[in-house]
Structure formats: structure tokens, C-alpha cells
């Protein structure tokens, strides 16, 4: 939590953000600001729109047929939904780690990490190796894979694959990193490893993480948002939300009375 107090720069902000699947409104009027180099956890019952909300923040929601978004998301003051903004640039600056580990099945471990850089036209071998090593180290995977960088990414275990995906997201050095339940498909040991590296990641990146696991939210996050039915019920310092929530609904949820 030490870092969160150092800088108060707002890096990302949602303004009246709403999202639909066809006629179904999944996200309703979200207004929130994210401070640089903090971790914000989004908690809430299943189907409450927290993943959809997260997917609006890097404009990946719109890749599903029949979906729609309204409102604004400001990245360093600029609306990423502005017609003049190239969606490709947005996603280079707001990285994402998904619920299910999804390394590219035909690529090696090394190529999986640096594929984002290759997309940007960086082909110099020494640069790619340097970035791969530093990102795999940040993702706490380097020691386990340094001798088999040319094996397929899918040959790793589930937990290792997820850390590989984190390294892949970090490699393009996005100021903001979105994580959509990154540990829900993993066992407790792999989960612990990923939680450990969150503190490290926070030094350089702003993280917004959706999680089903309230203990996880309490352990790793500086701020917590609580979502129900597409609405943000409460947002504040995690220490406050988990000890002294303002809303009755939040209290019921975190004490296990519903959800």
C-alpha cells in the first residue's frame, strides 16, 4: 500500500460508462477514477457485469457481435472511445490478462512473450531477449523456463501459462493492466505465486483486477469496487470496504450473506 500514497495522478477514469449485450444492459452508469500505480479489485456476485465493465476499459467488449458501449473512458485525460482514437493504440496502452490462460498454441514460450513487440515492428533479437527476460522475471517465471524458452507455451502447467500471459501483457509495457479473474482457473499454489508478483507489478503499472475471491481482493488491492447488477454500489480504500463498508449490500456480501 505504500506506493498508493506517493502519487495521486489519475491515470484512468470512467465517466457514465454503460454496456449492452443486445438489449441486455450489463453495465450501468459507472463513474470512477483510478490513481497511478495502485491495485483496484472489483468484486461482486457472478453475472454482476464486473468482467464486462473491465472489458470496456480496453475496448475488447466491442469484439463480441451485437454489443454496444456508451459513456467515456479517459486514459490520461483522453477519451479512448473518441472516434479519432485508434482502438489498436488503446490496447497497446491498456494490457489485459484473461480468466483462462491463453498463450498462443503454435508459439514458443519466448515468442509468446515478445509477440506484442513483434507486432510493433521490433525484431532486433537482443532487444527481444532483454524484454523477454525482464518480463518473465517480473512474472516470476524466468527461473522455471529459462532453459526451455523454445518449447511451446502450451507445454507449461496452467499456473505457469497464466504467468506467461502476464509476462506477455507486460512486454508491451502498458501503463494500465486489466486482469479478469486471473487466478480463478488455478490451484492455490499457483494463485499464491500470482498474488506475490502483484506487489512487484504495482511499482510500474496500474492494475485493475476482477476477482471472485474476497480474501484475494483484501490481500492484494489498495482500492476495491463492489458491483451488483451492473451498478457500482461502493468504491473506496480496501481497508475501509472490508472493515467498515458504507452500504448494507456491501456488508452483506463481504460477510457472506449473499452472492
Amino acid at each position, binding site marked *: 500500500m505504500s506506493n498508493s500514497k506517493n502519487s495521486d495522478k489519475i491515470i484512468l477514469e470512467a465517466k457514465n460508462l454503460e454496456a449492452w449485450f443486445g438489449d441486455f444492459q450489463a453495465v450501468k452508469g459507472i463513474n470512477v477514477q483510478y490513481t497511478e500505480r495502485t491495485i483496484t479489485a472489483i468484486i461482486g456476485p457472478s453475472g454482476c457485469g464486473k468482467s464486462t465493465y473491465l472489458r470496456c476499459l480496453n475496448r475488447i467488449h466491442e469484439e463480441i457481435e451485437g454489443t454496444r458501449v456508451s459513456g467515456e473512458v479517459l486514459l490520461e485525460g483522453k477519451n479512448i472511445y473518441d472516434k479519432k482514437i485508434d482502438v489498436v493504440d488503446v490496447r497497446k496502452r491498456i494490457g489485459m490478462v484473461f480468466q483462462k490462460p491463453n498463450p498462443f498454441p503454435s508459439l514458443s514460450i519466448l515468442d509468446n512473450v515478445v509477440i*506484442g513487440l513483434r*507486432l510493433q515492428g521490433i525484431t532486433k533479437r537482443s532487444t527481444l531477449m532483454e524484454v523477454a527476460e525482464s518480463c518473465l522475471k517480473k512474472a516470476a517465471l524466468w527461473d522455471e523456463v529459462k532453459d526451455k524458452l523454445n518449447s511451446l507455451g502450451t507445454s507449461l502447467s496452467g499456473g505457469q501459462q497464466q504467468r506467461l500471459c502476464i509476462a506477455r501483457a507486460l512486454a508491451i509495457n502498458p501503463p494500465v493492466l486489466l486482469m479478469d479473474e486471473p487466478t480463478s482457473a488455478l490451484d492455490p499454489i499457483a494463485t499464491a505465486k500470482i498474488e506475490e508478483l502483484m506487489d512487484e507489478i504495482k511499482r510500474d503499472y496500474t492494475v485493475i483486477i476482477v476477482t471472485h475471491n474476497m480474501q484475494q481482493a483484501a490481500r492484494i488491492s489498495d482500492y476495491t469496487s463492489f458491483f451488483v447488477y451492473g451498478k457500482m454500489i461502493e468504491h473506496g480504500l480496501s481497508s475501509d470496504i472490508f472493515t467498515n463498508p458504507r452500504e448494507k449490500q456491501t456488508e452483506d456480501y463481504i460477510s457472506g450473506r449473499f452472492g
Partner: protein
Amino acid sequence: MLKLNSKTQDAVLFYVLRLIALLVISLLLFIMFILFKSAWPSITHNGLSFIFKKEWNPVEDQYGALPFIFGTLVTSFIAVLIAAPVSILVALFISEYLPKSISHIVSLLVEMVAAIPSIVFGLWGIFYLSPFVKTSLAPFLKTYFGFLPFLEGPSFGIGIITASLVLSIMIVPTISSICRSIFELIPQHQKEASYALGSTKFEMIKMAVLSPSVSGISSAIVLGLGRALGETMAVTMLIGNSPVISKSIFAPAATMASVMANEYTDASSPLHVASLCYLALLLFLITFLSNLFAKSIVKNFSKIG
């Protein structure tokens, strides 16, 4: 009605199904046996040199399969060369660019091309494609690429290229529908992984759709090749049916299937009939091997995927 207990019912069903399955397999073996038996006089007379002999002259009772093997392989190869890229692009367009509501209709229409009878393709080839090749395509190719050896000689409209073009149209539905089903197997999360790294749609297709599908696409192409190898009616109508090996794609030729269709009815000498059956056996072998090859690619593919 006779009432069986459940155990007997299962047993009856099992034996009936097994009988039917065995029937199908024995039919395959039976066809092979009959082919082999009918071809036997030619096999003993010509041996394996049948495959390499260039001369096919029923009047002199001289039979060599090389011109037909050449015709079959060349027409099928050109057909695949044209059809493969077209089919892959059609499949990509249907699976990645069209909205779901329209994509079903479009893919149905593409598959309908496979339902057009071969003879109709043949007629279309004679009345439309062959004049087109003669008056437009051949002069065009000769003007711009005339220095290439396989574009030598005049075009009469009927010949290797015309047959190949029709074949390529006929195998597009096969290749594209298999490719489409492979592309649709790519999980959404793979595409999103690519988008999330800031890739354009084109880059996403390269990274997340095409690159893991390489072996599947190859097997689709080989299956299309298998269809082209055995295609008879349309090719017979368009290839010119002359058992020669020539450099030019405008020249007439003959395929294994076309010579069988043409000569079977007036084959008089026993050796002629047997040689046609020998050809049939060889064609069967080639298509069998190409299908086996395609299956083996699919098997390896499913292991990785």
C-alpha cells in the same frame, strides 16, 4: 409382437450394427478384389512398367499409363493451386468478417456449388469457359507471360487449363467448408489474446486464426486434391482426351478417369479392358493414399490442438 428382454435387445442391436459395418468394409475389399482380378491380364503382361510407358495405342494393343497419370496429376495440381487460396479467403471471410446471421446463408450458398452435378459443370465449361479460355484468357496469358515454356502453343479452348479451372471451382466448396469449420474452432479467448496486445484484425487473423490452423488447412487442401483426382465427367468433356504429354497447359490431354469413361464401352481386346482396370486400380490407390495422408495430418493436428 415378439417381446425381447433388454439384454437380448442390446445383443440383437449389437450384432445387426456389426453386420452392417462389416458389409461396408467387405464391399470395399470386394471392389478392390474385382478390380485386381480384371486388371490381372494387364498386370502380368505389362508389370510395373505400365506406369512409366508413354504409349497408349489400343489398335496395336500397346498400353502405358504415364500420359494419364501425368494428366490427372497436372490438372489436379493446377486446380488445387487456384482453389486453395480462394477457398481459404472465402472461409476467412465467412467466419471472421460476416455477421453470424448472414454467414450461415453465404456458407450454405458456397456449399451448394458442390451440389451442382458434374455434367452441368461440363456443359458450362463447353459453352462458356472454353470459348473464354480460347479468346480471352489464353491471349492474355500469352501476351504477358508468353516467355514461360508451359504457355507455349495455341489454345483451342479445350485442354488442360480449361479442365483445371472447372476442377478448381468444383473443389472450392470442399476446401472452404473444412477450413471454415477449423477457423470456427478457434476459441474466442485466443482472438482476444491477440486483440489485447494491440493487433489489427489482419494481424489477429494471422496470429490467432491462421497460424494454429496450418495443418488443418493442409489436410483440407489434400482432401480437395482427392476430389479433383477422381473427378470424371466434367474433365472428360473439357480436356480433349488425347493421350499425350505436352509442356503447354493449353494442350489437350487425358486423365485416368477420362480415358476410362471414354474407352470402356468400345474396348474390344481383353488386354484393353484389363489395362483400363489397371488404370482404375492405380487411381484408386492414388486417391486412397491422398485421403490417408489428409487423415494423418488431421490426427496430428488434433493432438496439438
